[in-house]
């Protein structure tokens, strides 16, 4: 490679085909690359979509059709029965409301606490700033399992096991590093400091400059971060299974486990699939809100 490159110093960015100067050769190579990429993409899309398709398809089939051998790739008849029946077996709407409440409260709490910290960490220099930042960001890297047991005992001894309060605070704290990371990037990139400087000169206090000027113009960023943290909490299983696993208060991720009794979830499989679809829809709606923001948000926050 080095020898070749020395021979053609002006074209050291070309590959073998390109370097020989043949325009046609380079075109051929491109065709091959494209074909490979398309094949990989098609295979990847099948891999990505198969379970989603299977879940949706099965949720509209009867138990017998789902278990047919060989499996029906295209359902022969569609029925909404599973969606009606699932509410008789588990209180799924109640579980969904629980999840919305817990994830929503945690997202709001986490964004509020996160944006105050992110703002001063983005804007000011003060003693202890670096240690605060490192502490908050490092917490994200602690694997959940290495703090699960003490948190479980602490919440138990505070009498908050199987209460909404316990899990809301827990979720808020788990999403906090992520909030601070993204919002700090957002404040640094999207809010010119002259804005609040003008307000400060006018005699505005630091807090009201933040509350009245910075927060209102940062609403898009705040909304996106809130939705991200909502999704985090919505998708969680580990903590919900530890901290909130009894009776009607369960979140939907733990609740759909009700179907799998002895011998797996075969008996109620169509209802189980319907419940899975139902548990996915709120996440899908939230995702559609943030998907435009995804790419720019990640660049602003974590990559930088």
């Amino acid at each position, binding site marked *: 490679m080095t020898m070749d490159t020395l021979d053609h110093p002006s074209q050291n960015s070309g590959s073998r085909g390109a370097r020989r100067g043949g325009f046609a050769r380079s075109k051929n190579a491109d065709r091959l690359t494209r074909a490979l990429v398309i094949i990989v993409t098609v295979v990847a899309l099948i891999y990505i979509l198969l379970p989603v398709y299977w879940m949706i398809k099965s949720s509209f089939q009867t138990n017998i059709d789902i278990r047919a051998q060989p499996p029906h790739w295209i359902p022969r008849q569609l029925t909404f029965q599973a969606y009606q029946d699932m509410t008789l077996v588990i209180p799924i709407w109640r579980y969904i409301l629980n999840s919305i409440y817990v994830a929503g409260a945690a997202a709001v709490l986490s964004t509020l606490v996160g944006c105050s910290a992110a703002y001063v960490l983005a804007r000011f220099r003060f003693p202890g700033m670096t240690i605060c930042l490192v502490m908050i960001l490092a917490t994200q890297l602690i694997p959940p399992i290495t703090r699960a047991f003490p948190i479980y005992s602490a919440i138990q001894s505070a009498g908050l096991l199987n209460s909404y309060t316990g899990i809301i605070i827990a979720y808020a704290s788990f999403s906090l590093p992520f909030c601070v990371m993204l919002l700090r990037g957002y404040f640094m990139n999207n809010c010119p400091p002259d804005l609040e400087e003008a307000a400060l000169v006018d005699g505005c206090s630091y807090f009201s400059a933040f509350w009245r000027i910075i927060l209102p113009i940062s609403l898009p960023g705040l909304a996106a971060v809130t939705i991200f943290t909502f999704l985090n909490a919505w998708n969680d299983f*580990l903590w919900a299974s530890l901290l909130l696993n009894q009776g009607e208060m369960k979140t939907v991720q733990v609740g759909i486990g009700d179907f799998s009794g002895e011998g797996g979830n075969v008996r109620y499989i169509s209802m189980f699939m319907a419940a899975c679809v139902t548990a996915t829809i709120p996440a899908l709606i939230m995702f559609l809100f943030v998907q435009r923001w995804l790419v720019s948000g990640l660049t602003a926050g974590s990559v930088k």
Partner: protein
Amino acid sequence: MERKKRVFCLLMVLPAILLTLILGLIPMFTSLGWSFLEYDLLRIQEHGTPFVGLENYRTILSDDRFLRSIANTFLMTGLVVAIALVLGLVLAHVMRAEYRGRVIVRVLICTPWFVPPVVAAAIWAWLLNADRSPINSALMDAGLIESNIRFLTDSSTWGPFSIPLLSVTAVRIWNGLPFVVIFLLAGMQSIPRDLYEAVDVDGGNLWSKFRHVTLPLLKPILGVLAMLLLITGIGHFEINYIMTGGGPNGLTDVMSVYSYLQAFSFFRFDLASAAGGMVLLITGVISVIYIRSQLRNEDKS
């Protein structure tokens, strides 16, 4: 004015610091502390929690099941990082390219992002169920296999590899792929277009654009992403736990699942904490490297 500013700053970070301490750092150190005690919930009444030094670590490190789970953790995480990054790079290019219908392709690639991991694990477990698997039936129809593959229950092994291990790994890649793709796509946005045009002028092809422009410029982001995937991968719990619970015969056991089962099936919080301590040790080393590189990036910008 200066004093006021300082008070304001401290008040603003205080809630975040409190949450971080109470639910992040203190539990982590408590867990480390427990790993040096005897903390057996079944015997705590008469024994209490005496200090036993490194005894718990000695116990788990002589447990074949735990040793296997360490190997599995590394193997699965390694596979997830490598395959997700390669596949992610290809799909990020597909998401960036201009063609008709690309919005649909973009959304489809992101699908796993909004499917909750529990749901994903359960659906995949059903899809990989040996007797009813549509995958088996498709492979059978294509004449590729003669008998059903027991994706999650086959206990034959080739060295450290086994079919269940690869199956669970595939689901974990499925679950993590959209994040990788979006992260890479975000990184690719910042590569100036004229660099590609320069390759065009030199007569370079698509591969040389990737090899000489995209790859070198993405290197820092690939590094950060690999670190993140390593750290989250080593601590990964949900998909392994729901799909197989570590079985068959511990072939898909990972450190987090081992730790969870010690605590909540055998009530050995001490052994669970020690296993957690091992996870922390491994991720800690990676984290230090990661934070240092982050801080270095911070200084640059």
